[in-house]
Structures are given as C-alpha cells and as structure tokens.
C-alpha cells in the first residue's frame, strides 16, 4: 500500500526521471546502432577486421561500468557533462551485441543466395542492401534488443555520476535506507526493460526471413 501511495505522490518526478532514463538509453542505442552496424558489416566482409573490431568491443564489455564512468571523467568535452559521459559509456557497452549480431547475421546468409546474387551481377552495394541486410535484419534486431535491455539496467548506474535517470531514486533510496525510493527507481526500470524486450522481440519475429 505504502509503495502505491508513494508512486501516486511522486508520479511527476518518476515520469521525469523515466523520460531522462529513456533519453540516455535511446541516444546511446542509436549511436551504437549507427556505429555498430557498419563495423559489423566491415568485419563480416573483410575478415582482417573481424578480430580487432570484435576483440576491442569485447574488452570494453569487460570494464566494470563504474570504472568506465571514472575513466571517461577526465576526457575533454565528454567529461564536462554527466549525461554526455553516461551516453558515451552506454554506447560503448551497447556496441558489442550490435556488432556481433550484425556480423553473425551477415555471415549467416545462405552462401548460395550470395553466390547467385553475385553471379547475376549485383554490385556489392546492391547485394548488401537488397540481400544481406534484409536477410540479417532479425538477427541484428535481436542484438539491438540485448543492447537496449542491458542499457536500461546500466543506465541506473549513471546516476552515480549525476547523469540522472531512474538511478537517482535507487541511489537516494540506498543512502536513506528507504525501500520505497529504491522501488520507485527499480520498478519503472524493470518495466522499461521488459517492454523494450517485448516490443523489439515482436518486431524481430515479424521481420524473420522465411
């Protein structure tokens, strides 16, 4: 009862922080997609790039999130504002699943289809945009889905460096030993993660090549 009461009382603030959270996750996912898909294509088409690209993304993934926030703090421009810093860190974490799934999706296209396309005289660009990417789209989307779900969770930690988002409630609640405050951050974050998972999962199934 207490929790519901708390939610009703603070709905304005919860909404604001949820939107802030969404913004952090949305911008960083967008950046990760814009950078990750080309890198995935690069490593799928030119195997020389495969190891350095995926290796780097893998290493970034192993850096603990608080440490990464700390590392980025002294970086000029980025470190000047907490939200920039948080977005950069979240982008870096989201890169791996996007790159890896783009790579896997493109490498997974039936070689006979690619060969037929090349034999018919499709240019590399036509092959990529008309054949490879459309056929890999559901695998790529599932990578984006993982990235979003992970980002929603990670973005709560961004509050530690003052970037806002639902983590505000969680950190405040931890400091004040107030479970209601923690839940006010954790429940909306969980709802965000689940709905992103569900929505993107649905889209993924819709776009599944037959």
């Amino acid at each position, binding site marked *: 009862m207490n929790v519901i009461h708390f939610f009703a009382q603070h709905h304005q603030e919860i909404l604001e922080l949820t939107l802030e959270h969404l913004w952090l996750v949305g911008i960083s996912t967008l950046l990760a997609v814009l950078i990750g898909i080309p890198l995935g294509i690069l490593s799928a088409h030119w195997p020389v790039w495969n190891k350095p690209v995926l290796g780097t993304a893998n290493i970034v993934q192993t850096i603990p999130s608080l440490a990464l926030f700390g590392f980025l703090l002294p970086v000029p421009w980025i470190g000047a504002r907490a939200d920039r810093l948080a977005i950069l860190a979240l982008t870096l974490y989201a890169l791996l699943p996007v790159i890896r799934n783009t790579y896997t999706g493109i490498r997974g296209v*039936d070689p*006979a*289809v*690619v*060969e*037929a*396309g*090349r*034999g*018919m*005289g*499709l*240019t590399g660009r*036509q092959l990529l945009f*008309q*054949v490879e990417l*459309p*056929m890999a789209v559901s695998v790529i989307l599932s990578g984006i889905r993982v990235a979003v779900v992970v980002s929603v969770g990670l973005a709560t930690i961004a509050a530690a460096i003052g970037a806002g988002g639902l983590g505000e409630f969680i950190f405040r609640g931890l400091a004040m030993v107030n479970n209601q405050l923690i839940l006010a951050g954790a429940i909306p974050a969980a709802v965000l993660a689940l709905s992103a998972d569900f929505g993107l999962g649905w889209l993924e199934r819709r776009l599944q*090549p*037959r």
Partner: protein
Amino acid sequence: MEPTPTNSPVIEFRDVVYLLPDGQTLLRDLNLQVQRGETLVLLGRSGSGKTTTLKLVNRLLSPSCGEVRVNGAPTADSDVIRLRRSIGYVIQDVGLFPHFTVERNIGLVPRIEGWPADRIHLRVEELLRMVGLDEKIASRYPHQLSGGQRQRVGVARALAADPSILLMDEPFGALDALTRDQLQREFLSLQQRLNKTVVFVTHDLREALRLGSRIALMESGQLVTVLPPQEFLRSTDPLAAAYVQAFGEGLNSVATRGTE
C-alpha cells in the same frame, strides 16, 4: 532452328590455369571453345574442376594464368557487373532470395537495369509460362514452392534479361528422378526455341548425353576430351569408357545428338 555455328567462339579458354592461394592447382592448361547456340556439358566427378571452369566465365573466379574470352573480349578487361548481367547463371542450390516473392526474384536484374514496372511484370509472366509455371505463383515466396518449382524459377530468373549465354551448375542435381526427367525434357525444348549458348555442369553421364551437343570430360583439373554424345559412347579413351561402363546399359537411346 538448328544452331548456326560461326567461326568465332562465344566463350573461349586460352591456356587457363587456376590456382588456389595455397598453390593447389584446380585447373591446368585449359583450352576450350564454346560455339554459339551449343550446349556444352562439362562432365566430371567432384573436384575435377568443372565448377571452377564455369565460374571463370562470369568472373566469379579469375584465371591465375591465361585468359577467358566472352564474345571475343577477354573477361579481365570487361566491366564485371555488365559481364555478369549478360550471362544467366543457375546453380544447384538455386539461391532464390528468400525474402523476395517469385516475381521480385525473377524481375531483379531487369529492375536494377531500370526497366519500367509494367515491362518487368509482362516479362515475368512470359518467363513463368516459358518454364511451365502458373502465373499465380508470382506472388509466392520461395519457401512455399516445391524443389522443382524453385529450380524453374531459378531458370526463369537467369533468363530474365534475355542473356545470350547461360551457365548452369548441376541445376537438376538435387531433384527427384521424375522431376529431373521432366525438367531435362523442358530444357531441351526451351533450348530449341531460345538457342542460347549453354555451359552445363553435371556428374551424370546420362544427363550429359541427353542435353549436350558436346561433352567435355574433365578429371583432376584437366580437360580429358571433348566429344559429341554418340562419339563419346564409342570413345576409346579409358576415362570416357569407364564412365560409359559405370552408367551401364541403355545409354544409346539417351544420346540423341552428335551423330551429325
């Protein structure tokens, strides 16, 4: 209409060698000419170099030495995209685009060549009839078709932009015997009407005898002999004889051409 062989070959291999990057020789000193309107069958077991030979024509592979000429011009000097669009290509696994309907699959090359939509539509209908498929099939996806239908669509797609050359890599290899027989028969009647220059890869002597105007026998990357079907049956070449032996009785009735 009988093929009208002219003096200049449509496809010509001159001292062609193909090596893998690791130095393994897949093809050595290949000299071969394909005349206008003929169906040249490349016969051999797997690894004999027949598919390699085929892929050298549309430059999916490039020769390590020597040159391949198509319509008199070395393929190395020609625009590879133009070259491939002027040559139909059919493979055993068909390679239909699973996310495109039959109509889009067949109409792909015309579309990227910038044909107007209504002309593509008419062409697709014409091609479907040509390969013995119902026009209603145009809106279906490849996974909704049977193996035989898929391969017919594959042939229709290769013919879409009306290429004068057709490369076929074991197109009927994965089909059941009845469907294969039917498609072979249709291939013959289609070839009689369209008179394309065809290079056809198979490991099946029966198919080679039935479809080919000449049979090029290959073994371990080398061309053993090139003979019309009837002569192939009478050949004293040990490998050709071994093939005839292996495929057994009744081959004479299959070999319809090559007595001229």
